[in-house]
């Protein structure tokens, strides 16, 4: 608790006094804090990310605090609330340092008992609390230490380096963990040198475009203007991806430090620089932590006028997005920052020359920015040694869907899809059959089982018709209907289309109508070809990235799962039992005990029967709500769901 108090008093008592005047001040303070941090050995770190908070980790923290106080353990044991660990599914996560014992699902059922056990067994005696440890779903083996858990063991964390380790609301904690060292180094470099390091590192934009960061910065540096804008794109609209939220919640200073270095590389000695962070309003905790980080950095003299006593000044403002997916597109985002409708515009002119308020602007994604300080500190060669020939470094994937361990995983580029799903992810939920992996969100595509050994990098993903995108990786199993999935994504893009250009506005609408027809059994021969035709046109003729990639989910699923589409169109059958109109319900008279529960609950009165006899479903009246299946006692399992609408036709 000592360091915490120390840090607290520093922040509270002498905000002005703590202002760092020179680089030497920063290094001295960091050394002091690091020495302080090492003294404290026992530490309990409770995750305070959105995922763990949903499982009441805030309450757990307070209970823990009380329990420690009651036993007079407060001064010896430091209690810390960290940012997101990425393993949100197992939350609340509690890590006991220095051994790094990983406790999962702490306090979900019996918070008081769990805390008692951790204090008595682990903190006082050094033993494990077995029931809270991680159990490998494949081998059933208990793994107590954080780094040995397969989910973490195969990861290489650079962007997520401090996630789950530091208190995101404390700048001193960040400084004690080596924070702002990259900035200190960059102060000694001239802007060209910084850009050179970035180019050498081979870092490419992590938001989806994959454009080389060093090149982007040099374009903006060379652009003429009396003001340069540095923007952080934190409008993570991609459904199924949440790495940007996690990074902002877990390590906001890392993003900020990256932006300050970027501003120095682009604008130092040329023109004044201004910064914006455009963050989704749907992420309240991320907004809160980034705001606090800006305030602290300003108080410490790391942001604002004359950073660390140099001539360089830089200010960052936070703007909350208002819920429009298209604002993730750079030109649309800038329009939104200006207070207008977030509609993309024609490029060129590129934002590097004419961006926000027609001034040269450089925009990068959260994950890109957070990598910057580490690259500056360790060098471009270090970073470029990781990954593949053209895709350097690591990438954070949000591994979600029908997989056992879901969460954020940061792996070197080029890792096999199979390793991510089966080693890190622990396999498919319920040991079902793997069907496909959906990457890149609504702009991406589906990768079928035959490409399980595909190296995950920009080039190979493009080769199979998908994209890296921002790193969404949704795992699908045999119970997923690919046509329904394509319909889902088209519903999304159609909804989010800004309406500026016709191919996207009307094309996505048409594709959606056709897909809806297919899912509802109203399709005609030729509909699949029609989808391909419209899709091609939208891809070629749309103005921005949203439109150009909108048909991808439909086109890739048609390419790899044509059989499933044909089955829907010709046989009016959905084998995955997802499309409501293409399945039927049936009561198996052999299994039925004639309890007649289904008969009473059926909202359409479609089940007919007389006492002591198994009832029957009148297929013509049945609207496939599934209520009968739910009510049928598990021991009987008399109601079955079968693919195909033939039964209805017969009835």
């Amino acid at each position, binding site marked *: 608790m000592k360091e915490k108090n120390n840090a607290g008093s520093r922040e509270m008592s002498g905000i002005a006094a703590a202002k760092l005047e020179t680089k030497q001040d920063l290094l001295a303070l960091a050394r002091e804090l690091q020495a302080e941090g090492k003294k404290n050995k026992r530490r309990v770190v409770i995750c305070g990310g959105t995922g763990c908070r949903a499982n009441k980790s805030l309450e757990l923290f307070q209970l823990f605090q009380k329990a420690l106080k009651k036993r007079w353990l407060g001064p010896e044991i430091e209690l810390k609330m960290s940012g997101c660990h990425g393993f949100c*599914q197992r939350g609340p996560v509690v890590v006991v340092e220095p051994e790094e014992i990983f406790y999962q699902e702490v306090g979900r059922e019996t918070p008081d008992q769990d805390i008692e056990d951790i204090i008595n067994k682990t903190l006082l005696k050094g033993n494990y609390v077995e029931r809270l440890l991680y159990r490998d779903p494949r081998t059933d083996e208990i793994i107590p230490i954080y780094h040995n858990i397969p989910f973490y063991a195969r990861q290489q964390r650079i962007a997520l380096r401090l996630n789950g380790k530091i208190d995101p609301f404390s700048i001193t904690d960040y400084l004690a963990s080596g924070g702002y060292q990259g900035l200190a180094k960059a102060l000694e470099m001239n802007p060209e040198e910084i850009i050179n390091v970035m180019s050498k590192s081979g870092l490419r934009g992590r938001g989806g475009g994959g454009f080389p960061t060093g090149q982007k910065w040099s374009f903006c540096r060379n652009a003429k203007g009396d003001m340069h804008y540095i923007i952080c794109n934190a409008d993570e609209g991609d459904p199924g991806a949440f790495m940007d939220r996690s990074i902002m919640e877990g390590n906001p200073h890392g993003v900020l430090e990256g932006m300050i270095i970027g501003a120095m590389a682009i604008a130092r000695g040329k023109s004044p620089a201004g910064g914006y962070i455009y963050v989704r309003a749907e992420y309240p905790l991320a907004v809160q932590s980034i705001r606090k980080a800006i305030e602290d950095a300003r108080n410490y003299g790391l942001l604002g006028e004359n950073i660390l006593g140099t001539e360089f000044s830089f200010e960052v403002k936070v703007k909350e997005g208002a819920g429009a997916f298209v604002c993730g597109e750079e030109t649309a985002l800038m329009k939104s920052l200006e207070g207008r409708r977030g509609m993309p515009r024609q490029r060129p002119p590129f934002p590097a020359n004419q961006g926000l308020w027609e001034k040269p602007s450089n925009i990068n994604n959260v994950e890109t920015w957070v990598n910057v300080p580490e690259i500056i500190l360790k060098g471009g060669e270090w970073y470029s040694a990781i990954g593949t020939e053209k895709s350097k470094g690591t990438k954070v994937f949000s591994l979600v869907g029908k997989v056992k361990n879901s969460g954020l995983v940061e792996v070197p580029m080029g890792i096999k899809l199979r390793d991510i799903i089966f080693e890190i992810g622990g396999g498919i939920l319920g040991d079902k059959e793997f069907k496909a992996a959906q990457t890149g969100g609504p702009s991406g595509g589906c990768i079928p089982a035959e490409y399980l050994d595909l190296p995950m990098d920009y080039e190979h993903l493009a080769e199979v018709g998908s994209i890296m995108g921002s790193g969404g990786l949704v795992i699908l199993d045999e119970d997923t209907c690919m046509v329904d999935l394509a319909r889902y994504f088209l519903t999304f893009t159609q909804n989010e289309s800004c309406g500026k250009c016709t191919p996207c506005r009307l094309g996505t609408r048409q594709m959606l109508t056709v897909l809806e027809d297919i899912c509802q059994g109203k399709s005609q021969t030729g509909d699949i070809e029609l989808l391909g035709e419209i899709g091609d046109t939208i891809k070629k003729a749309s103005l921005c990235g949203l439109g150009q990639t909108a048909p991808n989910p439909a086109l890739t699923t048609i390419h790899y799962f044509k059989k499933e589409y044909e089955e829907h169109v010709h046989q009016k059958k959905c084998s995955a039992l997802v499309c409501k109109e293409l399945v039927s319900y049936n009561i198996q008279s052999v299994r039925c005990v004639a309890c007649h529960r289904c008969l009473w609950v059926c909202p359409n009165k479609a089940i007919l029967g007389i006492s002591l006899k198994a009832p029957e479903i009148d297929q013509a009246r049945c609207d496939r709500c599934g209520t009968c299946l739910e009510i049928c006692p598990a021991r009987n399992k008399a109601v079955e769901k079968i693919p195909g609408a033939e039964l209805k036709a017969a009835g």
Partner: protein
Amino acid sequence: MKGTSPAKIQKALTAVAQTLPAKRESLIPALQAVQEKLRWLPRPAMLGISKYLKIPESEVWGTASFYAQFRFSPVGKNILTVCRGTACHVRGSAGILSELEKEMGIQAGETTPDLKFSLEKIACLGSCALAPVMVVNAAIYGAMNPAKGKGLLDQLRRKSKSKKRAASKSKTRRAK
């Protein structure tokens, strides 16, 4: 229709004028600030913003209606939001939404006539590892299913009923 009183609107507008500069850039933050106070954007409030920022009302409306965050009709006391992100979709969030629609007798994006409940859907909440996810009055619930969703609704219904009962009891007591 139960609206928002002009005094409240005026208060929200004054707060905007005190904190935000009168620039075009302030339009979206102004709308957000007003909505945070009033929970929706009544027309007089938008007119007030238009006057303060000197932007035509049509443009204020045009910008506001572009973004999904803004509401143009009063919202219920309790807001139930179902996440419709990809991870939630493949784990069955459509079923939760349709169950709630059926239970509440309204469609997503609507409010019950007594202004007690609103049902909304969100593109993605970013809590994908907990899929499917629901938000009830800013509290996140993970690993949901239709039955659990209905359970949350019932809980809220009981709460609002018992509040009503408590209120009416105290009234009768005071009358005595």
